[in-house]
């Protein structure tokens, strides 16, 4: 099909002469290289996060420290711990030697690579030397953060809130999308447009009365305000599911109907099995959204650290331990691990679903 679209007289690149293929290869390499550079810069903060999470706090303030997790190296020599320094050599190279005895204008070193060679006298001021850093991962940050922030509880809370609200959103979304895509009833188009219009309604407008009602019900400080509203369908999910349901041939419904199936049976045994990719996409979409949601849990679970989800706990932790970036970055890694792993596992279904829902809206 693509070959047909090409103008006559320009054969497909693969069939062209060698130099044309070479040129195409060169252009592709250049474009890919540029893209790789951009994506590295784009994802650089992740590098910072991983590097910082594995560092000892003292490394952050040390002036001569490298960017990767490292520690000043020491060398054990005859029962003594010697600091290792980067020592410039007369030939311009630099060697990592352990300092045995510093003097004012010279010093005595041991070569850790060859301690049998004995003491080496070096001429120069030892004070001007910088310490030698060796690669070293500090895992304590993760265990400390895990215990300080009470990760297991935050994880369970997030799972509970996100799981229940996703259950509600998917079930109600399927029902409403089925109603909009398969039945004719008065006011259907008006209702559908009304539903889409709720997307531009800022949630702040409904926030305070809802808060007042939940307060009166005694629900502030519980999970209910974060879960119950999702059992009443949301525009994004319904739209995506409806678009997908419309692509399922009606003949399948009719065949099931002739076999005596009612609307619920048709939904369960015809529509849902056919729409699995869209349902997966909506499930993931909503789960990620709920996993990351910050504002409403902040409002409704204020002062209830035992019930708060990860996002709220993490922000609180960030405010408390502002001076300890190593702990904070370790906590951030742990908070993003699950959604990122899920994303990579379900990438294809998810990307398709998002594109599919996105274009038409």
């Amino acid at each position, binding site marked *: 099909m693509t070959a047909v679209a*090409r103008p006559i007289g320009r054969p497909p690149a693969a069939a062209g002469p060698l130099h044309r293929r070479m040129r195409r290869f060169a252009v592709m390499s250049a474009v890919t290289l540029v893209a790789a550079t951009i994506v590295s810069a784009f994802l650089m903060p992740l590098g910072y996060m991983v590097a910082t999470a594995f560092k000892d706090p003292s490394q952050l303030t040390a002036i001569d420290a490298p960017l990767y997790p490292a520690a000043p190296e020491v060398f054990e020599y005859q029962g003594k711990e010697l600091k290792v320094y980067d020592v410039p050599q007369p030939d311009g190279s630099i060697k990592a030697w352990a300092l045995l005895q510093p003097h004012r204008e010279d010093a005595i070193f041991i070569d850790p690579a060859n301690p049998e060679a004995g003491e080496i006298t070096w001429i120069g001021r030892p004070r001007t030397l910088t310490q030698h850093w060796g690669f070293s991962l500090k895992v304590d940050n993760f265990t400390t953060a895990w215990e300080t922030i009470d990760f297991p509880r935050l994880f369970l809370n997030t799972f509970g809130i996100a799981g229940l609200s996703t259950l509600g959103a998917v079930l109600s979304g399927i029902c409403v999308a089925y109603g909009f895509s398969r039945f004719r009833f008065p006011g259907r188009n008006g209702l559908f447009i009304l539903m889409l219009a709720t997307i531009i309604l800022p949630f702040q407008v409904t926030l305070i009365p809802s808060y007042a009602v939940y307060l009166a019900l005694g629900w502030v400080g519980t999970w209910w305000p974060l879960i119950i509203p999702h059992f009443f369908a949301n525009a994004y999910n319904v739209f995506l599911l409806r678009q997908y349901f419309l692509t399922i041939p009606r003949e399948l419904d009719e065949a099931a109907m002739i076999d005596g199936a009612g609307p619920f049976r048709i939904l369960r045994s015809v529509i849902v099995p056919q729409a699995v990719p869209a349902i997966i996409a909506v499930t993931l979409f909503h789960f990620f959204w709920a996993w990351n949601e910050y504002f409403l849990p902040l409002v409704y679970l204020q002062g209830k650290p035992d019930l708060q989800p990860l996002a709220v706990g993490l922000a609180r932790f960030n405010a408390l331990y502002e001076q300890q970036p190593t702990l904070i970055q370790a906590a951030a890694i742990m908070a993003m691990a699950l959604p990122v792993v899920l994303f990579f596992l379900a990438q294809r279904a998810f990307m398709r679903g998002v594109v599919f829902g996105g274009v038409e809206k």
Partner: protein
Amino acid sequence: MTTTSAAVPIAAEPRPTGRWRAFRERESVTGLLFVSPFIVGFILFSAIPMLASLVLSLTDFDPREPDEIHFIGLTNYQQMLSDPVLHESLGVTLRFALLVVPLTLAAALGVAMLVNSRLLAGRHVFRTLFYMPMQIPLVASTIVWIGVLHATTGWLNYALEGVGLPGPNWLQSTFWVGPALGLMGLWGIGNMMLIFLAGLQSVPTELYDAAKVDGAGPWASFRHVTLPMISPVLFYNLVIALIAAFQYFTQAYVVSNGRGDPDRATLFFNLNLYREAFGFFHMGYASALAWLLFVIVLGLTVVLFKTAGSWVFAGGER
């Protein structure tokens, strides 16, 4: 179809036609039943709260003393006119929208074109990588960026020093904190990029070939083929980005620990609203603020839709 089946003797095709007709008759009821979660939800969680918030905006409601509520007319709206903090927050939000909406739209379109290019090897890998930051909880990614933007230990300033530029104190400077949040906003282009990508993929290749035959270079074919053809998705992204900019909250809250530091430079409209409602419990006034936000967002959306006729391309299928 249903009328003819009624003429057929019942004994010939008993159950199917009976079922079919009954189903048709009950179609409206069944359909409304399936849609009812939305109807009930809309009434309970949108319509009634909206009316209630309009009523609350005319009162001095304080949730700590719910019985002490008074009707105070338009006092809250009058107070808005002379509230310097509100004016500052509107300025902060507007300036940020003017920076971040064009920036993220351009970046998302650029990246979408890059990962759509046939000249890029491993396009799917690149798409996934550019989308990845969307999966990181916003609080976590904000925390990462706070580290990256740190004046002395952040990697961004290391990189700037590397090329001989002085790195500003991003998050502590009233001037630089806006651009810093704009940079952070680049991590949120994932959805926009995918929507652009879908738009780009629906442009017929014949159009590019025809433009080439007419002697169009890359810029001309972008300007006269790509842009008009993707204008519907560009429009959608523009509306969503504008709404998002006016609802900006989480990053501002985490960066400033909810205070709007430095010197109210991150006191976005929404952060101010949150502080009025849940910091000072001025819920009547906060309701009025929410309505102001709603009117602004609605107004902007309507204006955009009005201008859409002149620049959004309406193709055959739309």
